[in-house]
């Protein structure tokens, strides 16, 4: 979990990290198969998960048959209504809807929040429309959870300090091992029939995800391209096109 909140009719005393959520909101389906992200971690038995995806149910479940997973195409609706893949209002609506929060409460909070950060009335209205659409698309779900028991053993200090604990990493950077291509919402594609190999995309790519192949042509490193689409914006010949990741147009 990278962000979390608690809501209750009773006073909340516990703060900080939520180890065992009742509801998980997964904003990007590529996280599901990412062992570092492991977004179902800790989700309680009988818990609810909402996943932003266009993939079939079976591919998002990851063996958790003890939870209810609902799928919703937040990115698609965000692009249609807001014109940008900004998902906050939609995911808030999805979580509110499945966990039984009233629409009025959601929309009031949304208008207040977005007003407070200085969004204009037009954008606030679009976000309200986005949230309302998602809210209507889903239905309240029954939440009846129990914690998945975890082994929580403390280790004594003598074990922690046994190796001296001096930071002794001599290796230089290893971020190349971490592929960031799954961050993409949009996938750039080069039309080699139009491309003159002018290298402007190569120069502008902020992630060094453009390289030159053995044939001397520029090519995209899809393992690391984050889909910012600067290459498409900068290409003087409009030889780069975009498509939504996951096969959705």
């Amino acid at each position, binding site marked *: 979990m990278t962000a979390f909140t608690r809501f209750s009719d009773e006073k909340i005393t516990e703060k900080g990290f939520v180890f065992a959520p009742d509801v998980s909101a997964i904003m990007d389906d590529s996280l599901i198969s990412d062992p570092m992200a492991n977004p179902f971690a800790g989700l309680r038995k009988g818990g609810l998960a909402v996943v932003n995806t266009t993939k079939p149910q079976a591919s998002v479940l990851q063996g958790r048959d003890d939870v209810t997973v609902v799928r919703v195409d937040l990115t698609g609706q965000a692009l249609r209504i807001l014109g940008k893949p900004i998902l906050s209002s939609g995911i808030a609506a999805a979580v509110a809807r499945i966990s039984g929060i009233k629409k009025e409460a959601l929309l009031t909070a949304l208008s207040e929040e977005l007003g407070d950060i200085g969004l204009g009335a037009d954008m606030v209205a679009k976000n309200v429309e986005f949230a309302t659409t998602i809210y209507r698309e889903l239905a309240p779900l029954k939440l009846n959870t129990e914690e998945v028991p975890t082994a*929580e053993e403390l*280790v004594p200090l003598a074990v922690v300090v046994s190796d001296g604990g001096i930071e002794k990493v001599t290796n230089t950077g290893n971020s190349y091992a971490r592929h960031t291509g799954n961050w993409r919402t949009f996938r750039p594609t080069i039309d080699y029939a139009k491309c003159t190999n002018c290298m402007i995309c190569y120069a502008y790519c902020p992630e060094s995800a453009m390289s030159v192949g053995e044939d001397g042509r520029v090519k995209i490193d899809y393992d690391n391209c984050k889909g910012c689409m600067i290459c498409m914006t900068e290409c003087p010949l409009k030889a780069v096109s975009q498509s939504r990741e996951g096969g959705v147009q």
Partner: protein
Amino acid sequence: MKGKLLTGNVAAAAGAMLARVDYVPAYPITPQTEIIETIADWVREGKMDSRFVQLESEHSMLTAAGAASLAGARVFTATSSQGMLYTLEMLYNVSGWRAPMLLANVSRGVAAPIVLEPDHNDVLSARDSGFLQFHSETCQEVTDLVLLAYRVAEDKRVMLPAIVNLDGFYLSFTREPVVLPEQKMVDRFLPPYEPVGPMRATKPVSRGSSVFEGYLYSYFRYNQHGAALKAKEVFNEASREFEGLFGRSYGPVEGYMLDDAEYVLVMSNSFTGLGRQAVKRMREVGVKAGLLKLVMIRPFPTDEIAALLRGRKVVGVFDQNLAPGSGGILYPEIAGALYNRRGRPNAILPVVGALGGKQTTTKELSAVFEEMMAIDREGKTPAPMFLMRKDELSRVKKAISVAEGGS
């Protein structure tokens, strides 16, 4: 009353606004920056009638704050972590000047290695500086303690600067319902600050002079100590008035499920909420568990601690800080508060945990209660606990192996 959802940082800024501060010298640092950004916005929008200036360092910031306070301005500023360490030289000066300014510290572990989440080595580095210290558990307490701290600091019996502490992330970026007191009522509670012999360009005065002689120095130092001790009584008076006006009450310490408690955990700041959960869980299985929260760290509320811990079987002191080579910083203070008292607890268990905001489970704190029970049952000498879970240690090993080029 229904509160407005505010982050701890905005709650701190709101406290400064309600206190009608005159001057805010500022310097950014994560996770504090939202406080000064919020104040800067409010000053620009005309919601706050204050002078906001960004200085070039925390050291200069504190110097400006202390000097302005001597000139008669009500001063608010904020810092965190390394920023707090960088103010340190001026903290001792400003408190020696007897300038009652207020510093909000948003706790963050100190480097190296670098971390952003909270522990209390930063604020406890100011432990001996002569600043009063009030530590908050909730966002509501942040606003309220800012107002109370000004009231105490500016009292003529005290005249010392104060720190209000709030944990980074756990309070600074956590939104909770906060009831903001009405300005009219705050004005009644906190009248304008009246300096003693204010510095004026037209009427020069001297502060913080060299005294050279040890007996003169001792005189001023002892008086500073006396004023700090007096601050507890002044806080209690102010707190009673605060409760009358706003309906919320604060003491130097706060007890939770203490009535018949045999095993008591001493905590402070935002992780106290987790301690409350652990106490509830222990109670559910029939253990007489309780919690003592420290609100006031300076002056140290020795008598209140001794009174509330009297007759308990075992007390655990949860230190979210570490003095390498010694252990937790508050443990010896608690032990010192108890040693000469009749009916002191049979044993005190030192616990260090949640360093750098280490994600802590209720079970970890339950394990602390279980250790307290074992100490009582077996009559053994408490061995300090340093909390880390097995699953965390294996993640450490994994991270080190990846960093070394493995997988």
